[in-house]
């Protein structure tokens, strides 16, 4: 009988003692975005916390800001993060981190040392996006209040995802992928940049939430190129797109091509699916590599009078689109080989897989080798559908 009494007793003891990992929901400060800057050899960490009662769908309290940011300094990231607890009302909780913003200054100095904590600590996952703040420190970016998606980080997260999916000059790069790039010898890292328009101070105010045309906005611009972990420069939109074509990151995008007869008017071709293959063509006498893009497309918009019912027209459009894409790819390759003079396009990995023996010899000095390699590019675009009209109504309008 004694045992029957004893078992629940033990359970009770365990229960009373065991609250080690027990964290009640309302005691968590849910961190959704984090920014890292470096000022005078000290890291400055900015953490964006959600204010649940201001965000929740049912009993949302619109008078309060949906997000709060806290900032602290420290010799290491962890020290800074722990210092945040001094100012934050609740213990910050990181698994729901959506986005990590790296300040431009830190990016120029090299940010690798700052990232170890994020890959080591079990509280951090590796599926949040990483972006670089262009022309601003990271904390300015995190302080902006944005409409529609109340949580700024969620806004940035979704925006990056959609633009990467349907427009393609940006790059939705998760932390895990970034680490993979940083450790690869055959590819240098690139990170999308985020930029602030307007006055950073204005963005912190609730008014920014209450207008239909907010004065301060966040927008993604171009791609930052890193050598190892140091920011070396920015790609413009054309090069960024070219980069995405090369690394097979394009899911869907728009190619605007000039009308065949009328160079001033344009028509849009919507790429539905683009598939890129990087290949090593030959090793002798010199290594030669190639980029092959195969894309399926639809006609999305026609801004001039052309006869779409003729196969020849479509062929011409295909050719123009191919040319346009090719130009972008060339510009990206040119940027890599001539401007930056190192390989952020991943040709090194192709070489690694194709010629492991040769790779062993050049691994250490690949960037030098890369500059002299001939890279061919070939693009094929197949236009299959015209949307729900054949010729545009523009054709019928008298001149």
């Amino acid at each position: 009988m004694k045992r029957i009494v004893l078992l629940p007793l033990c359970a009770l003891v365990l229960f009373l003692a065991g609250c080690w990992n027990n964290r009640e929901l309302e005691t968590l400060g849910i961190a959704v975005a984090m920014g890292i800057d470096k000022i005078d050899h000290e890291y400055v960490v900015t953490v964006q916390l959600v204010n649940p009662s201001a965000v929740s769908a049912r009993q949302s309290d619109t008078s309060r800001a949906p997000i709060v940011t806290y900032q602290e300094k420290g010799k290491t990231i962890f020290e800074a993060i722990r210092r945040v607890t001094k100012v934050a009302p609740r213990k910050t909780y990181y698994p729901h981190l959506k986005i990590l913003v790296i300040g431009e200054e830190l990016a120029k100095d090299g940010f690798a040392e700052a990232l170890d904590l994020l890959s080591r600590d079990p509280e951090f996952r590796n599926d949040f996006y990483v972006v670089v703040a262009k022309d601003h420190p990271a904390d300015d970016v995190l302080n902006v209040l944005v409409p529609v998606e109340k949580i700024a980080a969620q806004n940035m997260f979704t925006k990056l995802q959609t633009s990467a999916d349907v427009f393609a000059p940006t790059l939705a790069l998760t932390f895990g992928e970034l680490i993979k790039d940083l450790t690869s010898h055959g590819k240098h890292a690139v990170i999308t940049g985020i930029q602030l328009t307007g006055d950073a101070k204005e963005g912190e105010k609730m008014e920014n939430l209450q207008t239909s045309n907010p004065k301060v906005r966040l927008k993604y611009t171009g791609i930052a190129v890193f050598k190892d972990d140091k920011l070396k420069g920015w790609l413009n939109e054309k090069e960024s797109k070219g980069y995405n074509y090369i690394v097979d990151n394009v899911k869907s995008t728009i190619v605007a091509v000039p009308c065949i007869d009328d160079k001033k008017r344009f028509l849009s071709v919507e790429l539905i699916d683009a598939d890129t293959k990087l290949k090593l063509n030959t090793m002798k006498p010199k290594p030669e590599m190639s980029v092959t893009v195969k894309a399926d497309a639809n006609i999305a918009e026609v801004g001039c009078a052309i006869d779409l019912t003729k196969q020849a027209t479509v062929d011409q459009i295909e050719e123009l689109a191919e040319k346009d894409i090719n130009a972008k790819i060339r510009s990206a390759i040119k940027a890599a080989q001539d401007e930056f003079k190192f390989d952020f396009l991943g040709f090194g990995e192709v070489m690694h897989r194709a010629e492991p023996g040769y790779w062993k010899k050049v691994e250490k000095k690949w960037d030098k080798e890369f500059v002299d390699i001939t890279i061919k590019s070939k693009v094929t675009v197949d236009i299959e559908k015209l949307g729900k009209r054949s010729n545009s109504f523009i054709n019928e309008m008298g001149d």
Partner: protein
Amino acid sequence: MLEKGKISVRQFTILVALYTIGTAILIIPSILAAKAKQDAWISGLLGLAIGVAMVIFYWKLSERFQYVNLIEILEKCFGKWIGKSVGFLFFVCYVLLLATFVLRDIGDFMTTVMMVETPIEAIHIIFLIIVLYGVKLGLEVFTRTMELFIPWIVLLLVALFLTLLPQIEVTNILPVFENGMKPIVQSSFSFLVFPFLEMVVFLMIIPYVNRPQDTKKAFMLGTIMGGGLLIFISVLTILVVGPTETARSIYPTYDLTKTINIREFFQRVEALMALIWFITVFVKLLVLTYVSCLGIAQVFELKEYRIIVLPIGLVLYVLSLSIFPSISFLIEFTPVYDLYAFLWCAVFPFVVWLVSLVRGGERNKSGTARTESG
């Protein structure tokens, strides 16, 4: 006989398969990828092949002695006293030690990635209580329980595979044979030692299968199923996470499940997936604890093994807390351990085999009548 229960051949297969997967599933990708990198699958297959050969050897050893258990084999080989002492050493220095490692593995895992603030003691106590309860219930009951677990493991693994399918990057396992054979062989040795040589403990369980002569196929099948699964998981990890990250990760499979993300909806399920290795680690620890209790009880000729389950659990608990100070110690110790395990699991049975060959010659002369009394 200390154990009166009998298990079926099918249950034996399941036991072997789950035992192979246990704990290994958590860390094997990083062990395989550490040296062999993207060629992990080759060293995996190599390790599996040698592993199956070893398993057949263990079975032959058991067959040679008419399927009596390990202690009786040793007694027949070396005589009563030497046999018993060697057996005692084997159970204390190898099986019990292995059990402490397994227990510590689950504790370390929990306190490293899932419940950081929980004291490791609490984790160990909870796990041990259930394991000891299982050991007390006996072989028959806990093998039946294993059968209950199988569908869950299959379900979770299929879910794991399907959800990771979109993230596979085939280029991750290229190029093949980049660094030649040497690292592949080195990795496969670790792989051989880690799950396959540990099969030696089944020498204590084969006697309790209802048709021991049929266990050869079951033993091999279980090993191949378990080993195949480990290779599959390793390849999957390398395909999704990449060889370098896999090698650097302490719990690569957990990292693997962390990457599951289907349309932002089905994600963050690693805690559920952790159930797979809870189950397999549970099975492994159960078998090891059971075997050490049975072995020690037999060495001392006790009437039943159940009586010493709790004190052995106590020893296990203390040892598991003080066996090594940190993970770094463990990582450094691994090559030594490989050798140590190799001595116990490969060299030791081989010596037994040799001795039995020498003595077996005599036995044949004196006729079959003496075989039973040995």
